[in-house]
């Protein structure tokens, strides 16, 4: 990567990117009810402002053709060998993310103004949302792994707060806790990675680490890669830490759109892309990334096929799509750009889909069961159209964004030109088919067929404040792919970060890949039509189904495994330890005390009160004393 310049001009102010939303959050939280009336507007404004700023910064960056800018802020922790500076690194990679976060973020803020209009706690909602944006920006803009870690847990907190936004619902509270805990598991990996960096290289800044990582032993680098991967899995809901993401849908839908689809969950991909210099050096770690990506891709897709909860289907689709991205970045230099491109595209269409789902729920009194939808296209035209475009983009309909980005990944996989390449490519293609299946199923159950609404439900289109962002995102979903791959190639933009993209000799011609993928996709659509579209959708899910379906409905038993492997033993262990502590450790002490008491009363018996026994005692004592003295002199 090219050497960093001192930040000047606007880049010097890039810390405002974080400061603005943070300030917004602070005002809203501390201001209390006073800010109820205009709070949401402030929240939206701050994010919009940082979007503009991000845009300007990016332009300046483009002006200095992508030479990264380092923004020194202050000394965070400096003691002994350790010296952590709080600083920002504004380079093409972080610029892309900053734009995505602030851009999609602003749109979703706008949407939420409408969506949360009737919620008494709307102010709190926007405060948390701003907090999230700030933390997320810190995550992507920080210039050291510590800064990243701070943002990393910061978004965790925001996600916790937002999932539990309707905390009176036990389900929401539990989901939030689950999300935080499983993220913490990942965080441990990230933390340990940082410790290793300090222990081995004495620094935690990107520049320092990436500069010296070459000097490390292979094993150490692999360890680093795996530890970072653990962190990434936690945050991005990848196997084996994927179970929290679908539950996270308990949060308000805009949250699902912003945090659990567009931005936060892609942080894992950012981490791996950012740590490219490390992964470039460790084949093993990359292989694990690939495996996890492929596996998660399938798990998500399969589970997505079985759920009836519209948001859960989208959630599993997210899991699956991020699997694609992991697969991409796991491929190394060939895949980084493809992965990030997919990430951006996914940011658009998945956010759009969630907003659409939100609009549907809005219309159906927060009903999420697709078996209770149907025939909505007539009632919700705008939602239908925007959602439909997002749908097409996701399943990779030719020349929409998903088509370009997903194919790029599959090509990159095949370009490995070894058996693994074929396997991964195969998995990716299969995944595309499944994606087409479950998304079509979703479309059919929601918008087509007979209306299966509960009585008293009168669907109505959402207000424009909600539909407008959906439209924007729909446009994005349509164009993003083409834009990023051909018109304004991301590869060129990211060149300062990942270096010159070497033109790999294609094993299979892109055109062929495109055709195959499209074919499989159509197959999936057809299957969905055969299974769902043709028949009447029962209002309640059929009970007697094939074991495969049952497994899929239980997300391949991920929760069951977690429970029986960790939760139950943990609870049992805790109960056991409590017993040990009270009976054992404390009991030992009390036992000792009791022993003293007992021996006291027993010894006390010797104090019979009879003069003669006392005299005997004295005589005995005298004999002992004499004996002792003689013994000492004798021995």
């Amino acid at each position: 990567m090219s050497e960093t310049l001192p930040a000047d001009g606007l880049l010097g102010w890039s810390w405002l990117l974080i400061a603005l939303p943070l300030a917004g959050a602070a005002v809203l939280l501390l201001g209390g009810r006073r800010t109820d009336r205009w709070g949401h507007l402030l929240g939206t404004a701050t994010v919009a402002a940082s979007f503009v700023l991000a845009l300007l910064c990016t332009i300046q960056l483009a002006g200095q053709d992508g030479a990264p800018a380092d923004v020194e802020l202050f000394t965070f922790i400096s003691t002994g060998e350790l010296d952590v500076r709080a600083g920002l690194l504004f380079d093409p990679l972080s610029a892309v993310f900053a734009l995505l976060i602030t851009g999609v973020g602003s749109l979703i803020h706008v949407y939420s103004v409408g969506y949360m209009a009737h919620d008494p706690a709307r102010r709190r909602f926007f405060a948390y949302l701003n907090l999230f944006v700030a933390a997320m920006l810190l995550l992507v803009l920080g210039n050291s792994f510590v800064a990243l870690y701070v943002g990393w847990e910061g978004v965790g907190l925001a996600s916790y707060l937002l999932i539990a936004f309707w905390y009176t619902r036990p389900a929401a509270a539990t989901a939030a806790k689950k999300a935080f805990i499983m993220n913490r598991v990942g965080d441990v990996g990230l933390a340990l990675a940082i410790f290793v960096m300090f222990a081995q290289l004495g620094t935690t800044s990107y520049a320092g680490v990436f500069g010296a990582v070459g000097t490390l032993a292979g094993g150490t680098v692999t360890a680093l890669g795996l530890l970072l991967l653990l962190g990434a899995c936690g945050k991005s809901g990848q196997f084996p830490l994927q179970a929290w993401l679908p539950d996270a849908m308990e949060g308000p839908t805009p949250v699902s759109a912003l945090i659990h689809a567009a931005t936060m969950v892609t942080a894992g991909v950012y981490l791996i892309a950012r740590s490219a210099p490390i992964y470039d050096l460790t084949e093993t770690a990359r292989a694990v990334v690939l495996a996890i990506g492929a596996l998660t891709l399938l798990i998500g897709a399969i589970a997505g096929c079985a759920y009836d909860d519209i948001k859960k289907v989208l959630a599993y689709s997210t899991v699956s799509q991020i699997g694609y991205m992991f697969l991409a970045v796991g491929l190394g230099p060939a895949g980084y750009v493809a992965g990030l491109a997919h990430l951006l595209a996914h940011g658009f269409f998945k956010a759009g889909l969630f907003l659409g789902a939100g609009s549907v729920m809005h219309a159906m009194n927060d009903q999420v069961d697709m078996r209770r939808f149907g025939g909505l296209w007539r009632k919700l035209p705008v939602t239908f159209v925007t959602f439909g475009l997002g749908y097409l983009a996701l399943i990779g309909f030719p020349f929409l964004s998903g088509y370009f980005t997903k194919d790029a990944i599959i090509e990159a996989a095949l370009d490995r030109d070894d058996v693994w390449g074929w396997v991964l490519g195969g998995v990716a293609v299969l995944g595309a088919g499944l994606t087409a299946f479950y998304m079509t199923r979703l479309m059919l159950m929601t918008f087509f067929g007979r209306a299966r609404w509960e009585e008293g439900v009168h669907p109505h289109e959402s207000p424009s404040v909600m539909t407008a962002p959906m439209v924007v995102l729909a446009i994005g979903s349509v164009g993003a792919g083409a834009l990023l791959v051909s018109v304004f190639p991301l590869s060129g933009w990211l060149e300062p970060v990942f270096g010159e993209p070497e033109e790999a000799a294609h094993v299979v011609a892109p055109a062929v890949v495109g055709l195959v993928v499209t074919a499989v996709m159509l197959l999936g659509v057809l299957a969905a039509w055969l299974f769902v579209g043709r028949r009447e959708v029962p209002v309640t899910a059929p009970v007697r189904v094939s074991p495969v379906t049952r497994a899929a409905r239980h997300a391949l038993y991920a929760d069951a495994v977690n429970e029986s492997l960790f939760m139950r033993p943990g609870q049992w262990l805790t109960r056991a330890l409590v017993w040990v502590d009270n009976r054992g450790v404390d009991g030992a002490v009390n036992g000792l005390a009791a022993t003293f008491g007992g021996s006291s009363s027993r010894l006390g018996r010797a104090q019979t009160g009879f003069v003669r026994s006392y005299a005997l005692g004295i005589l005995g004592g005298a004999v002992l004393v004499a004996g002792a003295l003689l013994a000492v002199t004798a021995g």
Partner: protein
Amino acid sequence: MFDAPDLSFTALAPLLFIFGAACVGVLVESFWPRDSRHPVQLAVALVGALGALVSTLLLAGRGEVTADGALAVDGAGLFLQATIAGLGALAILLFAERALDPARSAFVASVAVPAGSPRDRELLTSPQVQTEVYPLATFAIGGMMLFVTSNDLLVMFVALEVLSLPLYLISGMARRRRLLSQEAAVKYFLLGAFASAFFLYGLALVYGATGSVRLSDIRAASLAEGTDVLMLLGLALLIVGLLFKASVAPFHTWTPDVYEGAPTPVTAFMAACTKVAAFGAILRVLYVAFGAAEWTWRPLIYGVAIVSMVVGSVLALTQTDLKRMLAYSSIAHAGFLLTGVLGLGADGEGSGLAATMFYLLVYGLTTIGAFAVLTLVRDGDGEAGHLSQWAGLAARSPLVAAVMTLFLLALAGIPLTSGFTGKFAVFRAAVEEGAWPLVLVAVLASAVAAFFYLRVIVLMYFSAPAGGADGERGPTVGVPGLPTTVVLAITATATLALGIVPGSVLDLAEQAARFVG
């Protein structure tokens, strides 16, 4: 013809003072009109004790052997004499308390009257009060002061009897609970006589082994021809007699019974002064006479100390009567004192002597204070000694509770009280002589001991008042008259002062810590 022994009357002044007062007391007892006798007796006794105290202080720094070698008036002796005299004076003040008991004294008017007889019941309400205790107590003090300065086993024996016999008598003179008091007297007397017989036999054997009972000669003899079985047996029996007086386990059995039965002021007197005297004698015998044979008895004392600490503190745990509890605690403290005794080291140059003397002083003061508080808490028939009756005392009379707490913390050895300074001194002395395992046992024992001191505080402060339910059964806290007030003031002040600024007194003990002869 025979030539009179050289007598340095200045060096004897303290003894002359106290014994003189005792004799005067006897005369007063026999000739002074009964109705105004009490104040006079009190005055005589106090003058004797305080005079002795003052004269010892004036003599401070002297070190000479006088009375033809029978007495060693040296620094240690004088310090201990002063301690005994001072504590004795305080105890006598306790004897003189007349405000607390409706019958105007803690002592029965006429001992001869059998307990529970009609006459006895009359006596409870009669104005006449006991006055024989004063000369008796004075004699006891004299005996103790002689005990710690005697440089001759025979004189020591006589002193032992002079201090014991009056104690036997006055332990039986309680006005309340006379049966217990008499029982205490009988037990104390029989066992005391028994023990002193051992001491005497030891004396005889030592005499046989060395041809003399003069401590210096014994030392010389043991240096000359080493230690033979006869001498060791003699030493053993001497030690038995002394440890009995010091109520060191396993010779402690009399202590709880006598302390509980005897009138509380007497208990205070015994607990404080007798300990001082006994340990003074122990130190003198062990180091002046048998210092050369230190290696023979050191392990023994080591073991006895441990036994005493453990037995004392463990047995005290389950006591329900405060006097009895303090009795056991005194046994434990005897153990702590022995660690100081061991701190003298083979050459007797260690800091143990000063430490032990300081400990004796602070322990005596605190103990007298504690027993003085005991006399304040009363119910229908005399003092309310049962723990349960002390529950919630702090709510009823915060001051008394606070003072008692101070004494208890001192006995437990909490810093900023005299008890801690004393413990630190003796433990330091012991460690300096390499007896750290003993000190380890000691600290653990004092941790155990802390529990029962603490329990009293818990009761006084954290518990609901005794008989709060049925109301009238709760004990009353009497308003002390002048004497007890003075005692409490002095002891409490001393306990605090010697905890916070002990420097000067420690210096004094340090300078005084010399044996001659």
